[in-house]
């Protein structure tokens, strides 16, 4: 097995654990590269099907290309797609910096969806290498009744033994991609021929490295127009993937505050 085979096998193991131990279960599908890989891994784990709903918590501010992608592949991949809107920004904590406040809409929308469907497990595509607070995550990350993440009191997790909810109202965030790196995602997309939104590929010297809402994501300078180009670019680049995400740069702890409150 090469390194991608190992990552794939481990993610499949995690997805199968989640499916067995956490019901009802849903998988967040943000339409970005990571969550497409995640859907693909679920199909690997369950012999071509995704046996739980794919959840899109919609801010209404995604790129038109992303909505088109969603509608095409929800059908093509036979997904049980659940779409829910987020509350307006006026209802969000005004003490947050503007981009973080905008992003926090997604947290509120997700919380409402979890309440509505009474999920015990929500699969999310975060990776350790994306951001320092994500590096602190567990594969199975318990969330209290208010969906809060207790960073200082996380359960032990070793030898592939994961936590399960033990109190009413709790749920588990499951992170099958935690050990993947950005370059692994792209190498896997290339190997498996997984479709992604066109915005990742360079046009006029710019491309999106990470896709969020239109108002809080900016493209980076890049000539990478193919999968090969992107992989080559990542091999030589040292810029952080989320350099184009505004909220990460507003203050030292903005992202951490978001994460503790339940943001991905």
């Amino acid at each position, binding site marked *: 097995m090469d390194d991608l085979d190992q990552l794939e096998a481990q993610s499949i193991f995690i997805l199968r654990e989640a499916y067995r131990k956490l019901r009802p279960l849903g998988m967040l599908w943000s339409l970005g590269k990571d969550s497409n890989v995640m859907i693909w891994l679920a199909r690997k784990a369950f012999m071509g099907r995704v046996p739980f709903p794919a959840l899109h918590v919609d801010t209404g501010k995604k790129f038109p290309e992303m909505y088109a992608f969603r509608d095409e592949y929800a059908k093509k991949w036979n997904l049980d797609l659940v779409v829910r809107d987020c509350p307006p920004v006026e209802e969000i904590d005004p003490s947050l910096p503007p981009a973080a406040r905008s992003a926090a809409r997604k947290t509120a929308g997700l919380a409402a969806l979890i309440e509505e469907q009474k999920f015990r497990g929500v699969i999310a595509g975060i990776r350790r290498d994306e951001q320092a607070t994500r590096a602190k995550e567990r594969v199975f990350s318990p969330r209290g009744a208010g969906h809060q993440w207790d960073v200082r009191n996380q359960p032990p997790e070793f030898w592939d033994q994961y936590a399960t909810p033990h109190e009413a109202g709790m749920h588990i965030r499951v992170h099958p991609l935690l050990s993947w790196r950005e370059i692994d995602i792209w190498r896997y997309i290339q190997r498996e021929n997984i479709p992604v939104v066109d915005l990742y590929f360079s046009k006029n010297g710019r491309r999106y490295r990470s896709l969020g809402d239109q108002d809080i994501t900016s493209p980076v300078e890049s000539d990478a127009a193919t999968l090969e180009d992107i992989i080559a670019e990542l091999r030589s680049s*040292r810029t952080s993937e989320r350099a184009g995400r505004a909220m990460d740069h507003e203050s030292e702890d903005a992202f951490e505050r978001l994460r503790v409150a339940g943001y991905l």
Partner: protein
Amino acid sequence: MTMMTAPHPAESTARNAATPIVIVGHVDHGKSTLIGRLLHDTDSLPEGRLGQIVESSQKRGRPVEWSFLLDSLQIERDQGVTVDSTRIPFQFKGRDFVIVDAPGHRQFLRNMITGAADAEAAVLVVDAAEGAQEQTRRHAMLLHLIGIRHVIVLMNKADVLAFDAARLEAAEQAIRALLAQLNVSVDAVIPASARDGDNIAAPSDRSPWYKGPTLVQALADVPPPAPRARLGFRMVVQDVYRFDETRYVVGRVDRGIIREGASISIGTQGQTARVTEIARWHAPALPVAGPGESIALRLEPDIVPDRGDLLFNPDEDMPRPVRSARIQARVFWLRQEGLKRGERLSLRLGPAEYPVTVASIDSVVNLEDMTLQKADMVGPEGFATIILTTAHAVLFDIFTPGLNDGRGVLVDQYQQIVGGAPLIGAAEISEPSHTIHPTESVISSEARRAAGERRGHVFWLFGRPAAGKSTIAREVEARLFRDGQRCVVLDGDSLRAGLNSDLGFSQEDRRENIRRTAHVARMFAEAGHIVLVALVTPMKSDRALAAGIIGKAFSEIFVDTSADICESRDPKGLYAAARAGKIAHFTGVDAPFEISDDPSLTLSSDSGPERAAETFIDYIQTKV
């Protein structure tokens, strides 16, 4: 060992996965600083990261703090401690590593385990002047228990000792002695200064006497994980799916190779099946799978195993898993309350989960001097050797560093992981006089008889399958009931459905089936019951075993129906199945039936169960 015909893809790697390296040690001995230094010296920092550290350090009025690289949470920066483990990729000499930063504070032990449990190698950071402290000992103990095979000791802050050869030599001897006590072998002991970069990536000119490797060199010398493909096949069933009329048994191969067409033995029941397909979605068809692969198997016959059933290949000439209901384990206890004898927990072994009771605490480790002591309780975050008992025998492999074998984990009633429990073997049953104190009934048999109770007795009916044992026993039971006599029937199928459901049909399991049944029968007889046991009991030695357990109140009743008649009756279709090869070791077909030389009574069911029952009851009345 069976030689493989061709190398499996699992044995050739296009690109090796990153080698995880955990950094452990006592608080303030310099772990975070070391990692920061390591990343900087190997040119592994992302762009802008160094600038951030410098800025963050300046904001707090300090010189460059390498530890800020890791301590990225706000609380960590404010309090100057590392709360949780972080994984940082780093590359050296074309090889990928992942550094796992494990926090040193005692209350964060579970985070350290989380980070360290799968590491290939560990760097134990020890302050050269301070020497081993409590957390050094604790971490060293954990490295031993979780089975990390390569340990590199970094004698940090050697600059404080001015890189004095004699003093560093003394410090090295002390730490080597400690690790030898734990059977931890040491790859290298390196005098270093993480803050200044001595002997980290480049040899230091402050220690010209030191001839060993730099830290980076020592890491590069750690061999890649040993191949697991040439060991016996093991996979624990993770789940069973049924999609589009097809059943898939899914799981991850722990070790060995599985091929289409191979036999597998399933769990403690020991049923066997053949692998007809190794199914994968969107992958090239490959009739074989190896260690680490998450696979889906189709079986023939289409058996439905349980989650947690251990699969192995009975045709492989390899050691088989151990089977026991008493298991010795080394435990590292993560809960703040102690662990007491009698506590009920669950033991998880991969996807398997068994209710267990702590039967005894054999010894507890004293971290002061690393001695073993007798104790009634494993203290908070303590280490001990304990014995766990399960209701049913468990199939497991003994803990082996570097493999998934015997990686037991203890969970409490809230499903919280409260300890690690590497399984070190089946526990001998301790001497009954020490642990078991059977109580005798205060009602004597004379008193029972004076109160009009009859004497209890066990009538052990044996004979070929379908000889009519149960039919006769049930007939007798009904008649005795009408007469107001207390009668109990223990028949083979009922026992195997419940009490003995963990047993298969091997010679040992059949014997255990008889042993247990005899003990139960004896208890009923002691309470004044007429007990009718209906069991094939084909071996003389097994009937002797039962007679020995039950004693004087035992009679052997041979239900003498000829083999031909039994086979022609075949009410359960068992003979047909055995002849078709679907049941192995079936008495009278491919397993022996030893007739009796001098049974207490011989019954024939040829002229119907009623006649046999009458004869039998007459005999019973002479005994009770």
